[in-house]
């Protein structure tokens, strides 16, 4: 098979097909569901990898594109394709999915068929979002993904799983519904101007200005901001994260949150460059505020998972600054930081999950001195923690650094506020690390905990490898997004003017 749309479709739909197959397994074969799911998500990674290697970073526009008729009465078409940015998100998703599956082998014991089917369906939904180039198709994937995630949290989650899953579902969906109204408005507006009914994303670039453009932009922005989640639309996240099973948290942090940012890059900003130019600063300011706010609230937690969840608010806040500042380095950094956050926070959730499986508690107070009992695990956790707080040499730094440096040229204040996160992240992450891993082993229940097992190593090693790889040689990834980033900035009407450094001026 050529590296082209067929491969893309294969990568998208293979998991779903496998999911259906697993759901239909007879009860007696339930034990096969896990291995089957792992196999299929690994198999789906192969075409994704092939696409990534076959991706030509120099070409502008979409690659591996396919355009088929779909709902002709509506003018909706089945259009898919990838550019540098979505390619990166695509491969990230395909990469995290097998890890999520593998992390569930011992954690999930009930309704395994349905569980793995949901996980795989979720994978298809996420991949679809990144590949979709038709607004309706995008929306369908965007919302459809909520269903399996809702099940994953609601069935295999923690004690308050129902509250969390319903909140997650309603909150994110409610946010998206206004986007639906905005899509419809655009659709008819486009028809009245051109006489053509279409949902093609490219048809809507720079499609409305003035007050209307602003209203529409805000409708889209709300949908994406909830997903990001941008302060103050974030409170569904801690609940969802805390209650979700490990795999759910990995996917949630690793991919789902990225969709909000991706939505800004692919849709909200290019569709309404004028509005984005105006509203960019306030929204980025919310992001920068979220950096501080998320860090402070993370600091106040005694539940590890909740801490990590709040740290996501901080991390994605800075990403939003990078995306909206429309400076090449900052946007590249933001895109890379999406991946970084996916890796490091995904790994953090993975590690927390490993702890939870052993002790069935997520309260830091129940731990202490774990470094002595599980030295290898402590080392892994340390690397992941450092990646999360943006230590140079690891992945997190590259993204944060590029965002800060790029954003500083345009919005120095926001960059400086975000810089506060650099300090605070060390405060809460190392505080957590200390409480869990250092000190004497005070709790006898912790004395006999086994260190990492082979399966767990297999889960974390790929993540660690990438964490280091991106930290040391980020250019491998940056090179492939350069063209797409420039396209984005061009569509967004950027770059923004840099602030004046001339002498005597303020």
């Amino acid at each position, binding site marked *: 098979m050529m590296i082209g749309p067929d491969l893309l479709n294969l990568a998208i739909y293979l998991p779903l097909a496998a999911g259906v197959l697993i759901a239909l397994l007879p009860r007696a074969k339930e034990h096969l569901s896990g291995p089957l799911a792992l196999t299929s998500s690994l198999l789906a990674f192969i075409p994704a990898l092939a696409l990534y290697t076959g991706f030509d970073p120099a070409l502008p526009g979409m690659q591996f594109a396919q355009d088929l008729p779909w*709902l002709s009465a509506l003018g909706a078409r089945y259009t898919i394709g990838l550019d540098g940015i979505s390619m990166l998100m695509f491969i990230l998703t395909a990469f995290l999915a097998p890890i999520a599956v593998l992390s569930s082998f011992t954690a999930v014991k009930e309704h395994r068929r349905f569980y793995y089917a949901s996980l795989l369906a979720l994978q298809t939904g996420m991949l679809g979002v990144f590949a979709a180039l038709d607004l309706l198709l995008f929306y369908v994937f965007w919302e*459809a993904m909520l269903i399996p995630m809702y099940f994953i949290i*609601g069935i295999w989650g923690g004690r308050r799983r*129902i509250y969390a899953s319903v909140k997650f579902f309603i909150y994110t969906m*409610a946010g998206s519904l206004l986007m639906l109204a905005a899509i*419809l408005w655009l659709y008819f507006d486009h028809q009245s101007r051109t006489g053509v009914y279409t949902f093609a994303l490219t048809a809507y670039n720079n499609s409305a200005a003035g007050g209307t453009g602003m209203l529409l932009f805000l409708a889209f922005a709300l949908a994406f901001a909830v997903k990001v989640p941008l302060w103050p639309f974030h409170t569904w996240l801690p609940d969802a994260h805390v209650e979700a099973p490990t795999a759910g948290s990995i996917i949630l942090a690793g991919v789902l949150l990225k969709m909000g940012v991706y939505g800004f890059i692919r849709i909200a900003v290019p569709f309404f460059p004028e509005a984005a130019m105006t509203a960019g600063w306030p929204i980025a300011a919310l992001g920068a505020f979220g950096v501080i706010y998320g860090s402070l609230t993370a600091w106040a937690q005694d539940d590890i998972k909740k801490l990590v969840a709040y740290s996501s608010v901080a991390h994605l806040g800075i990403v939003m600054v990078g995306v909206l500042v429309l400076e090449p380095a900052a946007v590249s950094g933001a895109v890379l930081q999406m991946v970084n956050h996916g890796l490091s926070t995904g790994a953090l959730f993975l590690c927390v999950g490993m702890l939870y499986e052993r002790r069935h508690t997520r309260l830091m107070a129940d731990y202490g001195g774990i470094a002595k009992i599980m030295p290898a695990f402590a080392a892994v956790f340390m690397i992941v923690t450092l990646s999360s707080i943006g230590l140079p040499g690891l992945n997190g730094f590259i993204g944060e650094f590029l965002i800060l440096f790029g954003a500083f040229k345009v919005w120095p204040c926001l960059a400086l506020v975000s810089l506060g996160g650099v300090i605070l992240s060390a405060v809460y992450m190392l505080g957590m690390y200390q409480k869990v891993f250092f000190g004497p082993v005070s709790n006898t229940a912790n004395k006999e905990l086994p260190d990492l097992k082979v399966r767990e190593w297999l889960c974390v090693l790929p993540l660690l490898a990438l964490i280091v790889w991106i930290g040391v040689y980020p250019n491998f990834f940056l090179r492939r997004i350069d063209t797409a980033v420039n396209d984005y900035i061009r569509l967004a009407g950027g770059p923004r003017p840099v602030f004046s450094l001339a002498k005597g001026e303020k």
Partner: protein
Amino acid sequence: MENPKTLLDLIAPLLLVAVPAIIALLVRPAWAQRAAGIGLAAALFNVAVSAPANILPFGQSLVYDPLTKLFWLLILAAAFAAVVLTPRAACAAELPANEYYFLLPISAVGLMAMLATGDLIGVFIALEVVSLPLYALAAARRTAAGAEAGYKYFLLGSFGAALTVLGIAFFYGSVGSVLITSAAAISGLTVTQAAASAGFLLIMAGFAFKAALVPFHMWVPDVYEGAPTPVSAFMASAVKAGAVLILFRLFVAADLPLYYKIFWWVAALTMAAGNIAALPQTGVKRMLAYSSVAHAGYLLTGFMGGKAAFPAVYFYLAVYAAATIGAFSLVAILEKEEKGVTLDGLRGLAAADPAKAALLAVFVLSLAGIPPLAGFFGKFWLFAQAVRGAAPGLVVIAVLASAVSLYYYLSIITAMYSGKGDAAAVPRAATPLTLWLLGAFVLLGGLAADLFLLPAARALPFLP
């Protein structure tokens, strides 16, 4: 009468439903369902293969054009599903099978006639043919709740019918015609036209009652709850579809800006009231009843697009009917007591009977309008009409109402998929094939919306 084939296409489906219904009254109870089902299936087949032309053997009184064909397909399919999905056990235990399988198809015949006629008197008579069997059906279990539901329905239905007659009288008195098409004449500003307009509003109120629009909706939860569940399914699907379609016909026939304004408010109130009132419900039937109120509001949102909204309204009705019948039928299968199933009663269903739980989840999610289920595409296209009709504000209300609705729809799914509970004890029964088909349609119908939208678009010229 030039073409006997056309005449046959018009008459045969009505007879194919009515005659087996009468047979169902006469045969052994065990055969009644088969008789009614076969009749409906045959009629469905006949309609499906017919090639309608706009020929008027009975003037405007009975028309068989592509529009009628589409209407009938929908009504017949819904009625067929309601009949075959009536649990056999329920019939043996509580429902008098002969009467049941007589009354239900006859009501369907009424619906067919109602949608095939072009004059208001015909519409009214047909409406009564629909309603009278329904009053009886609602009370068919002959329990206290059933009797209460039946009588309430009867009282309010008759009340509405009387208003409709009064409306027809004034309309006729002002316009001098009872043809639906003559409603176009009321768009002036004379006293006569005001009277006609008021009369027309009374007529529409009668159908708004059947379609369960606010403020004519209050009977709905009580009746749906008290009636036998398969009857609720029929009412919520076929009858509502008939009422909405006739309402749409009247609405676009008048095509009066004033009505757009009025319907704007009615739609908004209906969506809001239906969804909000459903939130605290714990009985699934009552919840679905409120849900059906809300869906009438969504459908009204589509009306804002005027005549061209027909494909969207039609598609949505089809999808909505499938999901509603499916949901009610599953409740019918699962219920043990008269009152139907509560949320607690669904607890643990997923573990006990994953197939049924999955199907119910699909139906409910479609009602909630979540992609990739058909309900989403239906809603999408419906709301699109309102945007096209320059009513974006109503769309905003509609999407907010949809957001509210998520809570109670999810509560059903949450109950099924959480832990062990009452439903764990439900004996595993086979899931009827029809239910699977409905599920498949709801699951995939959205991706094949063309199958509905394109024929409906072709039938557009036949709307008044």
